[in-house]
């Protein structure tokens, strides 16, 4: 079957299973007795195997099969969950991840033999003792009926029954032959009594037969009907039915019986009729949110875009209808579209869980590598924020958490000496605050070493020699400046002298801010504040050279009126004194290459903070504050300095959105 078109679905779902395997493994390590977790993991491996097999991803199917076998042993408590076993499973999940990604991207597959061998070794350890002795007895090939059955047939025939021999040939590629035999028995026994089977039932159960077997049955049905019934079972190659002569009970088909070659496979005995009691239906933890639909992100974006347009035209219509009788009907339209807008926006929102989910595993591995005991506490993982932000916030968080492990938390003995708990704690959390989300990473390690930061900053020329003691705030600012690192040794984990400034610039590119709080010797807390969404922002609308422009409100500090007389010139640049600080002034129109402003009266000035520096933009007029939907500008107009995008205003005009960070300098 052609299933290549399902690869995306396969990939998405397989990654989900991988993630849940990882999570389950972590909780299993903490609580090895938990049967539900093992059941969950087993199901995940099992489902992955089935999916991979269907896609024809043999390596993946084989690998998951081995994992499944080990998990099955754990599930049945035939294998002790030792640290070795758990570590092998962790590594297997890693291998699986690599294998999966290589398979999906159709890259050459890295051999996974080694990991398979490790898994197989676990299975072998437990199964050696259970392997049944290989049985070498031969199948009875005689089709002769014994005395007892001959007598049975005689009596049955007297009561109007017919004795039939039914030869059933299974297709050569039949899977689970014994189960197929079982379905034949099931079907036949509805209308007949099976008095003999060649080979014997037990041999059929153990699949010790080639592809055919003969049943001797008593029935009142005509032979053709029996033939039909058996032929209507799946995987049957052909069926022959013959009436047995009742004189001697010999089968007429005796000459057709083939010598059934023995299968010497030491398959575990599994009785057809005496199947073991089934495990009770597992109680399943509901960690997977139900009723989810996967939608391509492109389609979502399109929907949101259209909703944005709808909202705009609604505003137009409402404005046109002002003072008109139809305003009542338009109220309804207004309300519905507003709700639609919020509903559409909510589609972009995803829980930050999908970022946080990777950290328990990461912290575990880094803790092991660094020899520190670390407890990771996570809160607020269901806090939602814009998908595009979620996609970008992962790396900065990885960096901050690595820093906490590497530089923040002290080695065990040092902690004990300071009478701190030997196990260090890292807390990762998220919460909403107004139209922002706050993400907090804190550790109870040594906090900021203000003195060391001061020395380093002087050494790097970031501070003047002889600079006095630093405040926590100043130290934080220094940490985030380019090229600053206090790592004593470059480790595997962090400390290559790049990073924190990259963290800061990522956060700022998401219109966010980053702050550090610390009590030296006690804790370090980093707080990242991000807008909930990047699609709708609050903006201040201003006019420059007749054009309406939108300045994101985030960066705006205040609006002031400036008289011409207040403007001074310092090094050929206009400045004013604002509360004893020098505020450089720029003409917004001029910055954008418009006609410079020529006004006699007082000038409206917007004070904006750019990279920690306040500057004033002189504008022609100030319209007010408004929520705007950001539309990116694509194609040749992409990347214009000073412009972040555009938006359509209620009255239908287009306003460019100012990008503060690239406007000047």
């Amino acid at each position, binding site marked *: *079957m*052609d*299933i290549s078109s*399902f690869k995306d*679905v*396969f990939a998405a*779902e*397989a990654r989900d299973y991988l993630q849940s395997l990882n999570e389950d493994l972590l909780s299993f390590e903490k609580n090895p007795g938990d049967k539900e977790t093992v059941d969950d993991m087993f*199901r995940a491996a*099992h*489902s992955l*195997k*089935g*999916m991979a*097999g*269907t896609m*024809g991803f043999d390596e993946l*199917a084989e690998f998951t099969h081995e994992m499944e076998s080990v998990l099955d042993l754990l599930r049945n408590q035939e294998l002790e969950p030792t640290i070795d076993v758990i570590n092998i499973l962790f590594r297997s999940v890693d291998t699986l991840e690599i294998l999966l990604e290589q398979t999906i991207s159709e890259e050459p597959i890295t051999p996974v033999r080694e990991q398979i061998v490790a898994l197989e070794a676990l299975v072998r350890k437990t199964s050696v003792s259970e392997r049944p002795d290989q049985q070498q007895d031969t199948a009875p090939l005689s089709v002769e009926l014994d005395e007892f059955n001959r007598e049975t047939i005689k009596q049955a025939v007297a009561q109007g029954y017919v004795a039939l021999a039914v030869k059933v040939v299974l297709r050569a590629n039949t*899977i*689970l032959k*014994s*189960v197929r035999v*079982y*379905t034949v028995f*099931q079907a036949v026994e509805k209308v007949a009594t099976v008095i003999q089977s060649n080979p014997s039932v037990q041999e059929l159960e153990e699949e010790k037969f080639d592809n055919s077997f003969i049943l001797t049955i008593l029935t009142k049905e005509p032979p053709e009907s029996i033939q039909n019934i058996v032929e*209507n*079972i*799946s*995987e049957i190659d052909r069926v022959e039915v013959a009436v047995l002569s009742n004189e001697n009970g010999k089968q007429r088909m005796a000459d057709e019986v083939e010598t059934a070659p023995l299968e010497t496979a030491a398959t575990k005995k*599994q009785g*057809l009729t005496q*199947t*073991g009691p*089934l495990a009770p*239906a*597992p109680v*399943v933890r509901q960690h*997977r949110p139900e009723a989810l639909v*996967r939608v391509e992100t492109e389609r979502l974006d399109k929907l949101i875009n259209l909703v944005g347009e709808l909202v705009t035209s609604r505003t137009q219509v409402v404005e046109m209808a002002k003072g008109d009788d139809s305003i009542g009907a338009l109220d309804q339209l207004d309300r519905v579209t507003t709700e639609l807008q919020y509903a559409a926006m909510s589609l972009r929102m995803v829980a930050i869980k999908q970022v946080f989910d990777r950290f328990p595993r990461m912290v575990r591995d880094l803790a092991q590598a660094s020899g520190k005991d670390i407890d990771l506490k996570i809160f607020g993982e269901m806090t939602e924020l814009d998908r595009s932000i979620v996609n970008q916030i992962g790396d900065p968080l990885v960096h901050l958490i690595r820093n906490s492990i590497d530089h923040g938390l002290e080695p065990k003995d040092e902690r004990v000496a300071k009478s701190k708990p030997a196990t260090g704690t890292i807390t990762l959390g998220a919460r909403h605050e107004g139209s922002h989300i706050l993400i907090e990473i804190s550790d109870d390690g040594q906090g900021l070493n203000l003195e060391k930061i001061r020395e380093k900053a002087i050494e790097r020329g970031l501070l003047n020699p002889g600079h006095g003691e630093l405040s926590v705030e100043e130290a934080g600012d220094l940490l985030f400046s380019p090229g600053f690192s206090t790592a004593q040794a470059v480790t595997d984990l962090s400390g290559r002298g790049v990073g924190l400034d990259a963290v800061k610039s990522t956060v700022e590119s998401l219109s966010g801010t980053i702050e550090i709080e610390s009590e030296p010797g006690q804790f370090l807390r980093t707080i990242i504040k991000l807008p909930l969404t990047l699609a709708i922002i609050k903006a201040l609308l201003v006019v420059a050279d007749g054009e309406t422009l939108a300045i994101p409100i985030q960066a705006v500090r205040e609006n002031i009126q400036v008289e011409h007389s207040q403007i001074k010139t310092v090094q050929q640049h206009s400045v004013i004194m604002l509360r004893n600080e020098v505020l450089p002034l720029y003409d917004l129109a001029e910055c954008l290459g418009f006609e410079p402003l020529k006004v006699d009266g007082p000038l409206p000035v917007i004070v904006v903070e750019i990279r920690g520096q306040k500057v004033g933009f002189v504008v022609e007029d100030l319209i007010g504050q408004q929520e705007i939907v950001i539309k990116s500008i694509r194609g040749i107009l992409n990347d214009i300095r000073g412009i972040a995008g555009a938006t359509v205003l209620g009255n239908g005009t287009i306003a460019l959105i100012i990008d503060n960070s690239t406007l000047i300098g």
Partner: protein
Amino acid sequence: MAKTVLITDDTAFMRMTLRNVIEKNGYDVVGEAGDGEEAVSLYQELKPDMVTMDITMPKMDGITAIKEIMKIDPQAKIIVCSAMGQKPMVIEALSAGAKDFLVKPFDAERVVESLRKIGS
């Protein structure tokens, strides 16, 4: 009129591949269930001619679901779907009333054969 089929499997991927094969061969997939509970309730609602039933599923496994459906409709035509190595479960499912079984990875011809034979 085309025979109707209800697909039961906990992975969307398996449901999709099955649906693909089944629909290509002139059957009408009227519903998809992600677990046993859903299969039972959809069976009552949709009254499909045939049901495919995965065994290992959350909430309610396939065997329990087969038993529940057989209680509701003793004539129900259910095909149990299993992976290699689930033999005892398949037998349990068959004795609970499943009419045929399929083994993953599915072979399209086998799926169609099963539907044809069970549906007749």
